[in-house]
């Protein structure tokens, strides 16, 4: 009946005091920071690394996301990096030797208008040519994949079909973080919690370390993976980033016997939902329009979310909301991330993943580690540099890919 969660390893990490200096300092102990440190240590032979986290490890968006993993993005640049990530996800349970409940149960992205249908077909068509598993499925097939979904014609916005990526799915977010943290720790990386970076040590235009709550720490290179706080750090370093920080909320129900076999996302009606292993329904809400660092959003967003959920899944009506929460997501004008060198030598940025960076965790790790180690953008990261805002070569995932979760 109840799914018993796997037991965690008896040893996860040390709690070291920070050293005076490291070869590489990563700011931010979320999924991205940890994955970057992991690849720096495991693939680039750099072992003298610290990950500095201002709170508790992976307590930012990593602790708050709805864990959807997929790679069916529209543009070539996106498909390339997300598919790279998905392939790594498929390897990670073994590689990290940790059962983090990676479940390739597939993702349906629903189409509710003729334009949704065009956009969906466009994305599926591109996915296929990019080697991403994707299909367009009609309402009958949708109903087969997810029988509790209301696919009748007399709803306000009937389901006209969906894109279906079978290899997509979910994973247990916290466990992923701990799996990475454990590996980092084993590879000698210092994971330092309660250590907020408050400024940068500079030598001219070159960053040579960071100032922290716990004193200065020198570093050969510094990588930023601070998600919602990226602008604050950039400001401390003396440059600006084209990102805005918004609340993004999610919620869970009580534990329920399995009813929902896959992941369903609807851009139009604004729902995305899966049923996690323990049995709780996990639903993401829409992003709040205003900037905020409060880690909570407005409740009308949740109300709207509930109405949409019931419209698509009538059976959810009597389920209960157990807990709501919010994260701080940093959003770029084109809904695509920024990965690459910063205007300052020795400082590299990874930010702007907005509402959809959990799925990219392994991809970011490998690409950002490479970028830091080599001192220049990894080929998959090249299109994601800051220059694109000047040239106009944006990777606009707004229009065509819908919600980016």
């Amino acid at each position, binding site marked *: *009946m*109840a799914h018993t969660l796997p037991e*965690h*390893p*008896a*040893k996860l*990490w*040390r*709690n070291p005091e920070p050293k005076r200096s490291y070869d590489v300092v990563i700011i931010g102990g979320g999924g991205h920071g940890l994955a970057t440190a992991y690849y720096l240590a495991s693939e680039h032979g750099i072992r003298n690394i610290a990950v500095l986290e201002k709170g*508790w*490890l992976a*307590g930012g968006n990593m602790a708050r996301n709805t864990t959807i993993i997929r790679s069916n993005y529209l543009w*070539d640049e996106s498909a390339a990096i997300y598919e790279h990530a998905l392939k790594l996800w498929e390897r990670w349970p073994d590689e990290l030797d940790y059962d983090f409940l990676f479940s390739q149960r597939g993702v349906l992205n629903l189409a509710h*208008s003729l*334009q949704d*249908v*065009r*956009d*969906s*077909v*466009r*994305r599926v*068509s*591109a996915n296929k*040519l990019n*080697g991403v598993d994707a299909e367009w499925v009609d309402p009958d097939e949708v109903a087969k994949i997810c029988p*509790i979904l209301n696919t009748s014609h007399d709803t*306000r*916005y009937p389901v006209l079909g969906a894109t279906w990526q079978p290899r997509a799915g979910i994973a247990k977010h*916290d466990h992923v973080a*701990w799996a990475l943290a454990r590996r980092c720790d084993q590879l000698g990386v210092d994971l330092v*919690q309660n250590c907020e970076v408050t400024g940068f040590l500079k030598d001219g235009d070159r960053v040579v370390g960071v100032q922290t709550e716990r004193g200065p720490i020198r570093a050969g290179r510094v990588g930023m993976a601070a998600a919602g706080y990226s602008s604050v750090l950039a400001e401390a370093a003396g440059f600006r980033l084209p990102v805005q920080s918004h609340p993004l909320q999610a919620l869970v*129900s*009580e*534990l*329920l016997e399995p009813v929902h076999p896959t992941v369903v996302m609807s851009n139009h009606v604004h729902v995305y939902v899966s049923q996690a292993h323990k*049995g709780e329904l996990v639903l993401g809400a829409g992003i709040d329009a205003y900037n905020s660092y409060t880690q*909570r959003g407005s*409740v009308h967003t949740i*109300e709207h979310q*509930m*109405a949409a959920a*019931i*419209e698509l899944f*009538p*059976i*959810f*009506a*009597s*389920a*209960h*909301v*157990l*807990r709501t929460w919010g994260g701080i997501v940093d959003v770029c004008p084109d809904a695509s991330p920024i990965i690459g060198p910063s205007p300052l030598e020795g400082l590299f940025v990874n930010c702007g993943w907005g509402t959809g960076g959990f799925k990219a965790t392994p991809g970011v790790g490998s690409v950002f580690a490479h970028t830091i180690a080599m001192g220049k953008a990894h080929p998959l990261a090249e299109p994601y540099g800051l220059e694109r805002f*000047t*040239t106009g*070569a*944006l990777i*606009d995932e707004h*229009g065509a890919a819908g919600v980016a979760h």
Partner: protein
Amino acid sequence: MTANSERLPEGGRIDRTKPLRATVDGIEILGYRGDTVASAMLANGIRTVAPSLYRSRPRGILGAGNEEPNALVRVERRGSSPMLPATTVELTEGLPVHTLSGIGALEPNSEAKDLDTRFAHTDVLVVGGGPTGLAAALAASEGDARVLLLDDQPELGGALLRGTDAELLDWAGGAAELLRARPEVTVVSRCTAFGYYDENYLLAVERGETLDRQRLWKIRAHHVVLATGANERPIVFAGNDLPGVMLADATRAYVNRYAALPGSEAVIATTNDTAYEAALDLAAAGVSVRAIVDSRAEPPEDLAAMACQAGIEVLADCVVAEATGTDSVAAVRIVRFEQPRRTVRTIRADLLAVSGGWSPDVGLFSQSGGKLRWNETLAAFLPEHSRQRQHIAGAARGRYGFARCVADGRFAGVSAAESCGYPAPDSPLRPGISERATRVETEQRPVWIVPAETGKPAEWREHFVDLQRDATVADIARACGAGMRSPEHIKRYTTIGTGSDQGRTSGLTAVGVLAWLRGMGSPGALGTTSFRAPAVPVSFELLAGRDTGKLLDPVRTTPIHPAHRELGAEFENVGQWKRPWYYAREGEGMHEAVLRECAAARTGVAMMDASTLGKIDLIGPDAGEFLNRLYTNGFKKLAIGSARYGVMCGCDGMVFDDGVVLRLSENHYTLTTTTGGAAGVLDWFEEWLQTEWIELDVWATSVTEQWSTVAVVGPRSREVIGAIAPELAVSNAEFPFMTVRETVLGNGIPARIVRVSFSGELAYEVNVANWHGLAAWREIERAGAGFGITPYGTETMHVLRAEKGFPIVGQDTDGTVTPIDLGMDWIVSKRKDFIGKRSLSRPDTARADRKQLVGLLPDEHGTLIPEGSQLIGEHTPVTPEVAPVPMLGHVTSSYHSAALGRTFALALLRSGRERIGQTVRTPVGDRLVSATVTEPIFYDKEGARRDG
């Protein structure tokens, strides 16, 4: 056990004149109005609930309110609910209850419920109707303030209801009566505040007596008084999850409030004064109370004396080390508090009432942004600092004792009313009562955990911390050993506090155990995990409110809608609008209907409802200048009475909307927008006018729904227009293309007729006041009948415009397309500046190899390439398994054309204009289909048809 066997013969606040029957797991139980499912179960001798979720351990009822972690039930009918604590469900006639092991089940067809939502405003909101809340509400409403009092119980009185003090209960009854009599006071029982948001915005759920009635309150309060009371906490020892282990105050509730016996032989374990009351009340109810186990070396003398009088032994400086028994508590082993923990005694008992101290209920306070601080004396986190206009009072801030609570509540109430500008006249709450002496509690000796005598904490798997999550000290120890230090990590590693009770009985205990494991003096330095809404679980449907089914999103229709329905139109959702998609006749599918509709427009005459187009009037001397700045082309010099097509870009140079602008007089323009873009364009205009170009003298007003528009299209449209507008000179010379005429139709309706064409054919748009829309439609239908006038929908409109190569914003563009990409260089002014112009010369935007709008003619004339299909080069190998296949663009529009007798498409194609004449390919199903790239115009390239 027999029905009602454990019901006390008298007392309690149940209504013995209202007997009820219900079933628990199919077994019939008897109860009374005023019972909860849990109290009725106890009264019927049911002390065991469903086994635990992961370890299948027997479990019983632990609490008497929403702190309950074990006694979860599913209710089938009457507002079926997948999972609720039995301690909060009122017993009603015929209720079918099933006990649950911590996991609920959803039912497909739950019965309809009576759900409602309401907004409420108040000067003072008081949450909690115990002594504190009652005092606060009374004081706050002495003056003119509007006061709203919420309490989650069916009856006001709070903690008093669990006691037996008649005088205090009378006081509460009187207070409630007084409050209800005051005109500006609203008292809502059975109503739980569950969310506390910015600016004193609170959500609360009000329940009916039955589960199928619920109402969501959305409250804005000027000032809030939180009088939410305190929660008792358990103590962690071996076997503390056995049925028969209960919170001490809950046992009081059962005997005093519900007249139900939770056991027959009891041991009390406590760290503080309050459990003595439980002991005395149990004894008075006939329970044999065998001992009070008090962690303190010197329990207060008066209490000890009272216990002694009641024949209860007090074991001071002792703690319970273990509860034993197979299916429920059979015996309790008691040890010395101080090391070595020598066993003092083992006592036979079927009830172990535990009080590990009290935690003020600070959930809402914390949600509101309030800060907490550890208080060593009370061994609790207390409110320290408010962030909103609020008071927290009484037990909720660690003020215990009736008199102190009343005084605290009163102070909060007076201050709250004052802060709203309604000073309360000073009048005592009721003579006598506030002077009543209540004993002040002496110190407590907190016990978070009673360690086992053997083994390591990581092995103590029977020391339960979170009963619902089946999590133990061993789990916490393991997390700690793995390197975790923060309560937030412990929570996630052990899942403590993540159950439906959100850790009401386990959250702080876990922190206490963690502090103990880490050798810290108190949990103070560790802090709590965060409190989040909802404070109690609330159903999805409650939060959704009315916005479901047909009220999910407004359905917008035009005044002509009844005619479309009569004609059997199939509708398309366009934004919130329902627009006719096509009008299939008997035996036709969409394909046939569209071919017929297209043919009518190209060869005869056809009509469509174009009312959903956005319409904006611009009035003022600078209207022309304003248009010039926003559109890529010029409008300042547009002749009065003339029309011009225009495109707008965002600042980034990407096409954002298009439409036709008419100049009605020197200072008056009116323009159309796309259906979906109407609101956005008005916003856009107003933003520039109000925030950037305040010097411009222009007034923008939406007139979208002032007007209804019927397009009359086709070679014979002039004749139809002539027939409906007898006063109008309709010849090409007198009413040329792109001009506008005001006239009165033959039936008396004033109309503004514009000669524009979105199909390439001779065409008119007849605009009339919205309330004349239907009449105008019918008039055109009548006048056109002789010409075979054919109504057509959006699909035909799309085909007709695509044959002419007119793009649709949002279909042929996607926010990454410039007017140049669309081949509209002719409309992009070189002379003047306009919004977005600068962006067109950015390095990437100026590239020659951008994607450009082109036409496609599939080599097979009957093959329809699906819209959205990606295009690849003629010789590009298709090997996605090996490497991504380079793509050149995609098909944006694709149709069968009646006029061309074949399929055709529009596409955005990399370097498209250069590729005209070349072949591209696209996957269709399992095949690759070839198509020739063409100019994006397929029909009447010369434009000869638009004049008829």
